C-alpha cells in the first residue's frame, strides 16, 4: 500500500486512499455483521415466524397464529419440564454458588497451601465435555457398583439414582455442582482479589470480627461478581440439556429428568413439530429475559450510586 507523502504524487493514489478510508471501517466490521445476520438474525426471525405456524413433514406449513402458544400453556409435559428446570436452577443457585464462593474464600486465604494445584483441580471438571461428564456420572450413580451407592448401601438402601423419579433431579444437580462449582469459583476468586485490603483493615479497626467483615465488606464488594455469576448460572441452568439427556437416557423415568430444552429438542427433532419447538424456544427466551432482569434488579445492579 502506498501512502502519498508529497504533493507531486499522482492524484489517482490520493483518490484511492480517500475511497479506502471510507470503505475500510465497513469492511472491518462486516465479518461480524455478516455472521450475525446469517447465524443469528435470520434464524431468530425465522424461528419467530415458525412459532406462528404448524409445520408438518418437510414442506407443508399452515398459519396457526398463537395456537402453538395456547397449546403449550395447556401441555402438562411442558409444565413438568419447566418445574424440573426450575428445580435444577434453584439447586444450582442454592448449592453450587455457595460452594463456589466457599472454595474461592478458602483459596484466597493465606493459610491454604498448594493454591495453584487446588485452583487447577477445582477448575478441571469444566474442561470435561458435558457428554463425558454424563458418562462418568452414570457410573458414579450406578445402582449396583456406583461410587455413591457403595456408601449408601451400608445403610441398607440401594438407591436407583437414575431409576427413581425423586432422585433423578438431585442426581443431575449434584453432577452440575461437580462440573461447574470450580468454574464459578474462578469468578469469585477474581472478585475477592479485587477487594482493597484497606477495607478489611478499617473494619478491623472498627472491631469487626471475621464474619462481620465477610458480611459488611466481602459480600457488598462482590456484588457485581455475584450478580454476574447468578445471571450466567441461571441462564445456563434454564438451558440445561445434554447432562440430563444422557444421564437419564432421554428424561425418563416419567419425564423426571426432562427439561425445557430437552422438550424443545424432542418436539423439533423427534416429533417433527418444528413450529411447536420454536414456540418453546421463544417462551424460554422470555423466561430467561424476565428472570435475568428480576435478578439484576434484586441484586441492585440497576441502582445508581
Amino acid at each position, binding site marked *: *500500500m*502506498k501512502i502519498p507523502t508529497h504533493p507531486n504524487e499522482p492524484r489517482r*493514489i490520493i483518490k*484511492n486512499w480517500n*475511497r*479506502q478510508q471510507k*470503505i*475500510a471501517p465497513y*469492511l472491518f466490521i462486516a465479518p461480524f455483521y455478516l455472521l450475525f445476520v446469517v447465524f443469528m438474525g435470520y434464524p431468530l426471525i425465522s424461528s419467530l415466524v415458525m412459532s406462528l405456524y*404448524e409445520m*408438518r*413433514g*418437510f*414442506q*407443508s406449513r*399452515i398459519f*396457526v397464529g398463537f395456537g402453538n402458544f395456547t397449546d403449550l400453556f395447556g401441555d402438562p409435559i411442558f409444565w413438568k419440564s419447566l418445574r424440573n428446570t426450575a428445580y435444577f436452577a434453584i439447586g444450582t443457585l442454592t448449592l453450587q454458588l455457595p460452594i463456589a464462593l466457599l472454595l474461592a474464600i478458602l483459596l484466597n486465604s493465606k493459610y491454604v497451601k498448594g493454591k495453584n494445584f487446588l485452583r487447577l483441580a477445582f477448575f478441571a471438571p469444566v474442561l470435561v465435555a458435558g457428554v463425558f461428564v454424563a458418562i462418568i456420572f*452414570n*457410573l458414579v450413580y*450406578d*445402582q*449396583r*457398583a*456406583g461410587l455413591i451407592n457403595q456408601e449408601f448401601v451400608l445403610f441398607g438402601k440401594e438407591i*436407583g439414582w*437414575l*431409576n427413581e*423419579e425423586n432422585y433423578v433431579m438431585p442426581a443431575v444437580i449434584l453432577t452440575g455442582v461437580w462440573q461447574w462449582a470450580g468454574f464459578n469459583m474462578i469468578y469469585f476468586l477474581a472478585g475477592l482479589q479485587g477487594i482493597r485490603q484497606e477495607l478489611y483493615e478499617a473494619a478491623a479497626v472498627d472491631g469487626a470480627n471475621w464474619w462481620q467483615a465477610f458480611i459488611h465488606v466481602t459480600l457488598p464488594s462482590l456484588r457485581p461478581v455475584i450478580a454476574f455469576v447468578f445471571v450466567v448460572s441461571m441462564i445456563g441452568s434454564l438451558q440445561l440439556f445434554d447432562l440430563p439427556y444422557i444421564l*437419564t*437416557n432421554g428424561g*425418563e*423415568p*416419567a*419425564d423426571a429428568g426432562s427439561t425445557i430444552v430437552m422438550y424443545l429438542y*424432542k418436539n423439533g*427433532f*423427534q*416429533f*417433527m413439530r*418444528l413450529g411447536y419447538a420454536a414456540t418453546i424456544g421463544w417462551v424460554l427466551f422470555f423466561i430467561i429475559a424476565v428472570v435475568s432482569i428480576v435478578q439484576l434488579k434484586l441484586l441492585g445492579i440497576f441502582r445508581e450510586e
Partner: protein
Amino acid sequence: MLCLPIDTDGFPLGKGPMVMLVLFLLSTFFIFGRSEEEGEDLEFWIFANTHYEEYQARVPIFEAQNPSVNVRLINFGGTMHDKLLAAMLSNFGAPDLVEVEITSIGRFLKGAIDEIGFVDLRPRLEREGWMDKLVVSRFTPWSYRGRIFGVPHDLHPVVLLYRDDLFKAAGVEMTEVETWDDFIAAGKKATRDLDGDGKIDQYAIVLDRRTESDYFSLLLQQGGGFFDEDGNVIIDSELAIETLEFFTALFNEHEIATPVYGTWHGDPSNFAAMQDSKILSILAPDWYVGILKSQVPQMAGKWKAIGMPSWQPGGRRTTTRGGTMVGITKQCKNPDRAWELLKFTYFDRPGLINRYETTRIIPPLKAAWDAPIFKEPDVYLGGQPLGELFIQLAPDLPARYQNPYWSEAADLLNDAIFAAVTEKQTPREALTELAKKVRTLMAKDMSRWGEQHDLMKP
C-alpha cells in the same frame, strides 16, 4: 512478486484482501462446481458402528464389480438421524442411501405422502420378487400407506435368556416352560432371599419399566400394538390393558421381576447385577446377545436360551425388538445405482453370513438361513446353537405397524408404563388416558391439515 492482471492498488486495502477474495472465489467454485463425472459417487450414511465396519470390509468388493462407482460410507453415530432430518428439511445434502433406526423412522413419515423423503421401494421389490424372499412381516415397520420406504436390515427375534445353573438350583427345568403361566410358577421358585435377611437376592426376570421396550415386546407377541394396520390407536384395547396388567403383576403381585438396573438393559449396572446372580433371565433379541458377549464375556457358558413363553399352549414363542432399514432418499441422483448397492449390502448371501459371524444378527433373507454357521454351537451359551433357535422362531415374527406418531406415542407410553408399575394409575387408567391423548393429538392435526394429510388414506 505477485503479479495480477488487474489494478491491485485500486482495490480497497491493497493486494492482501484481494488475494483472499480471489482464493475465496476459487475455493467456492471448486466446492460447488465439481464436475459431473463424480455423479457416480454413492454416499451411504450409517449410525451403527458394527454396520459401518461390516460395509467397510465389503464395499470394496462392490466397487471392484462396478469400477465406475465410488462409494462413500459415512458413520455419524447417534447424531445421524438429526443430520438426515436437517438435510431433508433443507432439501439439500442428504445421502443416496441411509440406514434408519426403527424408533426414528416415524418422524420421517410426517406430512403428505408425496413429501416423504424416501423413494417408494415397493415397485422394485415386487418386480424383482424380493418380497417373497424376505420375512414379509419385517416390511411393516418401514411401510406406510401402502408404500415401502425401506428394506429391513434384520429380524431381531426375541428369546428368553436364562441362567440354567440358578434355575436348576431352584429345582426348575426351564426347557419345560412353555407358557407365561409356567414361567410365573418357575419364577416364584427361583426368586429367592438367599441369606434370610428378608430381602430378595435373585429375581426370576429383569424388565424395563422406564421405557416401552419389554411391555411392547409382550404386546407385539400377541399380535397387538400401539397402532393397527390402518393407523388407528389400539393401545387401550383389552389386549393391551391385560398385557400391562400382566406386566405390572410380575413386579407387584408375583414379585418375580426386578426393574432394570441403571437406565436400560445395556447399562453397566444391569450387567453388574447379572454377574452378581441377581438376575436369572432376560428377554433378549439377537443384537442383545451380541452386546452381552462383548460386555460380559466372563459370563460365557452361564446362559441358555429358549423361545419366549407363549400366551397359550402352542402359541407364538417370540416377538421382535429393534430394527434398522436402508432407504434410498429422493435426493439420490441415481436410484438405480443405489438400488444395486442396497441389494449388495442387504441381499447378498455371503455378506449376510459374514454379518452373522460378526454381529450375531439374523438376516431377513430366508435363502441365507440354511448356512451351516447358524447351526454352529455357541460357546457363550454353553454350546447351544443359538442361531438355529432364532431361525426356528423367525418365520413367526409379529408385524409391527409404523405410524408417523410413533415417537410421540412411545414417549407417552413410557410414562404410562411407569405410572402403572409404580401403582400411580391402574393399567386401564394409564392406557385409556394415553390413548385419549394420542387420539386428541391426531384429531387436532387432522382438523388442521385435512384430507391431504389423512393418515388412514392409502
